[in-house]
């Protein structure tokens, strides 16, 4: 018997719609569970007080500060390198075996799993360079880890800058560098900023690469050479060692909330850029 193709068409449409809804539902459920379960425990006191008894009591203030430092400092290292690379690849050179080589390097860095970054940061920064478990070791490791994201997004943003802007700038007698700094970077800024925001998000949510380079000290880091614990690492330790389910949910809520805010901001900026050029 031949089944009516129109019937199959209807069935498949239904099936695919269900799959899409199911996928989104799972992911939304994850966020909702964390928000509902964590909400009662997230108080201003939880955010602004110090942990007591390994995190069983008290708050997450030092972890919030460590997370902020890690995010900001790793971006401070990675951004100049990333934007510089993107400018070189798009404005200062033609496609050649050298650029292919550089692109291969960027792609490979992007594909390396975070635990390998953790191993590398541990042996290189912590042990060989004698930085110990410190904010500095963690920051440098994460900076290398997020570099490919910044390079890619900046490259795409710079490529999207209309060519006539360059032509006009050159015809007014501007040098290449003047064109880059005064015309191209300002026009590509929103796209570049998107990449930076996404990278901060990755730094904030990372665990494996951070725990072996920054350590997991409960104290507020007093300097860049001190160990510190990020919110993601704290959450991992709370959950893995079964220290406190309530505090784990609460920490996860603050963590997810920060990441969602960072990512939403990134998409908002990207959207404005797309609107500007089309």
């Amino acid at each position, binding site marked *: 018997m031949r089944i009516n193709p129109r019937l199959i068409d209807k069935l498949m*449409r239904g099936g695919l719609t269900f799959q*899409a809804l199911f996928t989104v539902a799972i992911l939304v459920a994850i966020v909702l569970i964390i928000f509902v379960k964590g909400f009662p425990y997230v108080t201003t006191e939880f955010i602004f007080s110090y942990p007591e008894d390994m995190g069983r009591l008290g708050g997450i203030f030092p972890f919030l500060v460590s997370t902020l430092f890690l995010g900001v400092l790793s971006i401070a290292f990675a951004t100049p390198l990333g934007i510089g690379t993107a400018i070189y690849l798009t404005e200062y050179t033609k496609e050649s075996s050298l650029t292919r080589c550089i692109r291969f390097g960027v*792609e490979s*860095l992007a594909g390396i799993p975070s635990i390998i970054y953790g191993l590398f940061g541990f*042996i290189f920064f912590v042990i060989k360079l004698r930085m110990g478990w410190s904010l500095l070791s963690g920051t440098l490791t994460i900076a290398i880890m997020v570099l490919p994201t910044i390079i890619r997004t900046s490259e795409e943003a710079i490529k999207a800058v209309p060519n006539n802007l360059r032509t006009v700038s050159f015809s007014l007698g501007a040098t290449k560098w003047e064109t880059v700094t005064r015309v191209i970077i300002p026009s590509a800024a929103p796209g570049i900023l998107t990449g930076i925001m996404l990278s901060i998000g990755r730094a904030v949510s990372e665990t494996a690469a951070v725990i072996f380079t920054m350590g997991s000290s409960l104290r507020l880091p007093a300097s860049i050479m001190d160990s510190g614990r990020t919110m993601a690492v704290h*959450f991992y330790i709370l959950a893995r060692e079964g220290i406190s389910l309530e505090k784990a949910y609460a920490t996860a809520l603050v963590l*997810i909330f920060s990441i969602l805010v960072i990512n939403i901001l990134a998409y908002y900026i990207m959207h404005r850029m797309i609107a500007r050029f089309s």
Partner: protein
Amino acid sequence: MNRRLANKENAIRLVLLLFALSSLLFLFIIFIFILSEGVPLFAKVGVKNITMGTRWAPTKGFFGIFPMIVSSFMVTLGALVLGAPLALGCSTYLSEYAGKKTKMVLKPSLELLAGIPSVVYGFLGVVYIVPLIREYLGGSGFSILATSLVLGIMILPTITSISFDALMSVPAAFREGSLAMGATKWQTVYKVVLPAARSGILASFILGMGRAIGETMAVIMVAGNALKIPTSLLDPLRTLTSNIALELAYATGDHRRALFSTGVVLLVIIMSLNLVANFWVKRRVDK
């Protein structure tokens, strides 16, 4: 242009070139340091005794990671089997069936959800999936099944968003041609659009696999971390990544070197996966 300006431009070009080369430099030193710590043990104990050995007792001179290699592949495959069809269905719906408005809402929200930290997936796995398995299927609950489920959910956003891009890059003329010949929507999707996007879809699966096989902390939380080769879906397991993370903090001497050897094996697997994915993506662009 006067000479001073030209010199300045050349200096800038040079600095930017150095910046661009930094990525290659980082890749190089990462490889050098992982290899220089990990390879000596291969020379000392033998590649076969490490990659094919089944006993891991690093303080007693046994460095077999074969069970972990097997476990890593099993959970990755499990994640793919559970996650890939769902993700592909989702991306097909988004690119072929969804209206513009739905697309505008669903695509960015999926990408936002890709930002959920992996430890959160692991945590919810421990709280919800592990007890469910323990209660209804038996065993401790910490198992291949639990790990595959957690990883399968974790790779949903990755596969969906990359295969969506592959589907969107199929020219509209393909669809119009098929529909004009009287094919139904589903016939068009199944016989024209999906085959045309095949290589991009495969690449998305491989990148999803890369994410699953590289995941560490979420896996530690739900896998049970036992050292045997798992023989059933309900057996606990230890992957290559968790082996490193579980022991690195206190390992010394040959034990620590063995963890770097584990890293070398992981790196080889990941690099091969990436090469295959790149090959597929490139072929799609060339076509």
